């Protein structure tokens, strides 16, 4: 609408803080988390596999929540990089989710403890009898792996804290110069993000089968991560609005755009997934096809097909129309489904390496998910307990409020 004549949206009447909701969310999330931890401990303690099953389930859940926070960090940096006005009212929640990255750095510790259970290249005996792994040992060795993990999490924690803190400082001072500072960092930040995110996916996931390699793997993980985040974002705002918060500042237009992004990255994920598959299928080289062969044999074939239809075809059809994207209650149904499919995608990346032909669903998968999910939500809610849920004094908040899809 014409900026000269449109009436300003009245924010004075809107609830923009979690308020009394915060302790409740934290309590419930922590209760679920503790339940998950207790269940995990009970199940893992009773197992006779030395914890291998636990570490795999934990890795799936850990990478899942890591990917959501990484998606959030990408969103925040991208908004500054592109000087975006429309998204200002959404950015605070993305900042809050991204700010879970320091928490995830701590939650990475079990993965490091389980290194020898997860990654065959970390076993000197295996490497001694494996010519290929010897060739890769300069990169794939425990010390360098730990150094790289430290670098990734230092970059992610540093960036997410910087953007969260600076944005909060702007809430107090209203200084538009802070926006310029955040924008100036966004260029180098996106490069750092691309490098760390790509190599982290190589290290955490691709090296589960260190014989296999795919240069597009980092993009594949990126596509799924961003999609997961864009699926989570409308759900966050839907729940906040259901509880009477942000009822004015986040409009149908913003939901429409979150839906568009979820749709776009559904297609992007499928495009990248197929690009990876087709090149390997077509060139038909044994050192590359093994990875897909494992995922096409036995029960895994059904998981692969579920991903094709559930991760792409269904969300594609559900999100293509403008109609559901402009209806809050409708848009969250496919995005909740996408969040589930994103979990299955990570599961599909991790599990076939240890369980050929059989999908080893276990209660541990659920308890690890609950444990990490509870901590994830509780940490974010705790962080936001006294903060405004929108960037109140961003110089472009008015632009964001007025934003309309043409």
């Amino acid at each position, binding site marked *: *609408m*014409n900026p000269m*004549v449109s009436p300003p949206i009245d924010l004075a009447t809107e609830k923009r803080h979690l308020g009394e909701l915060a302790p409740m969310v934290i309590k419930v999330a922590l209760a679920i988390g503790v339940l998950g931890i207790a269940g995990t401990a009970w199940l893992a303690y009773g197992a006779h596999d030395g914890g291998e099953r636990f570490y795999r389930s934990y890795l799936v859940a850990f990478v899942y929540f890591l990917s959501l926070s990484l998606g959030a960090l990408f969103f925040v940096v991208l908004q500054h990089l592109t000087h975006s006005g429309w998204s200002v009212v959404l950015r605070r929640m993305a900042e809050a989710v991204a700010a879970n990255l320091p928490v995830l750095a701590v939650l990475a510790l079990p993965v490091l403890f389980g290194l020898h259970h997860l990654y065959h290249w970390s076993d000197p005996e295996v490497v001694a009898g494996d010519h290929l792994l010897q060739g890769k040992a300069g990169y794939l060795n425990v010390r360098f792996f730990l150094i790289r993990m430290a670098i990734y999490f230092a970059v992610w924690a540093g960036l997410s804290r910087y953007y969260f803190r600076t944005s909060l400082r702007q809430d107090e001072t209203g200084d538009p110069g802070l926006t310029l500072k955040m924008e100036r960092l966004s260029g180098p930040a996106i490069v750092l993000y691309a490098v760390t995110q790509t190599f982290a996916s190589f290290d955490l996931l691709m090296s589960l089968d260190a014989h296999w390699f795919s240069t597009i793997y980092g993009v594949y993980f990126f596509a799924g991560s961003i999609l997961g985040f864009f699926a989570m974002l409308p759900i966050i705002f839907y729940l906040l609005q259901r509880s009477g918060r942000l009822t004015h500042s986040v409009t149908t237009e913003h939901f429409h755009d979150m839906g568009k992004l979820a749709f776009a990255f559904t297609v992007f994920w499928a495009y990248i997934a*197929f690009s990876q*598959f087709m090149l390997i299928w*077509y060139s038909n080289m044994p050192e590359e096809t093994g990875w897909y062969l494992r995922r096409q044999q036995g029960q895994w074939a059904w998981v692969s097909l579920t991903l094709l239809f559930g991760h792409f075809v269904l969300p594609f059809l559900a999100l*293509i*129309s403008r109609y559901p994207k402009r209806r809050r209650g409708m848009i969250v149904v496919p995005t909740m489904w996408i969040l589930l499919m994103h979990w299955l995608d990570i599961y599909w990346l991790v599990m076939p390496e240890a369980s050929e032909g059989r999908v080893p669903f276990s209660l541990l998968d659920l308890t690890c998910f609950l444990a990490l999910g509870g901590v994830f939500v509780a940490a974010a809610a705790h962080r936001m307990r006294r903060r405004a849920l929108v960037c109140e004094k961003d110089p472009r908040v008015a632009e964001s409020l007025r934003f309309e899809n*043409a």
Partner: protein
Amino acid sequence: MTGSEKQLRGLLAEFGSTDVLLRAAERVRDAGYTRWDAHTPFPVHGLDEAMGLKTTKLSWFVMACGLCGAGGGLLMQWWMNAVDYKYIISGKPFFSIPASIPVMFEITILVSALAAFVGMLAFNGLPELYHVVFTSRRFVRATNDRFFISIESADPKFDAVTTASLLTSAGAAVVEPLED
């Protein structure tokens, strides 16, 4: 051509701002006119609703054409590779879905884009080489700093006097007859 041969084809109303234009469009819409249009130098948010325009059918047309493109692309490759000209390429099957997807994808995009372009023109009745609004000297400012509503005399509700007074009461700065 002499003045007596000219016929009234419609009315052109000029407005000074988008706000007045939007309110006037609502009045014209509510009065039940069907053969009329609004002309603005830039896209005005809310004008679609004010004019009572229905959601476009273009997306369904594009969707249908895109699906035909996908199916046609698949059929084409099947017929070429597995029927008409069988040729073994690096031991691959004559016909397989994965190998066909890139071409299907490209044809889907191509057909959808063409359908959107041609469909948009067709649904809008374009190209339209002549319209009576172009007889108005005033109308050139529709591309600059003025907002217009034109109502054609072919509209069943059209009446030279009442339509003109509707436009005037809706806030038109000037109402002029369109003749040719």
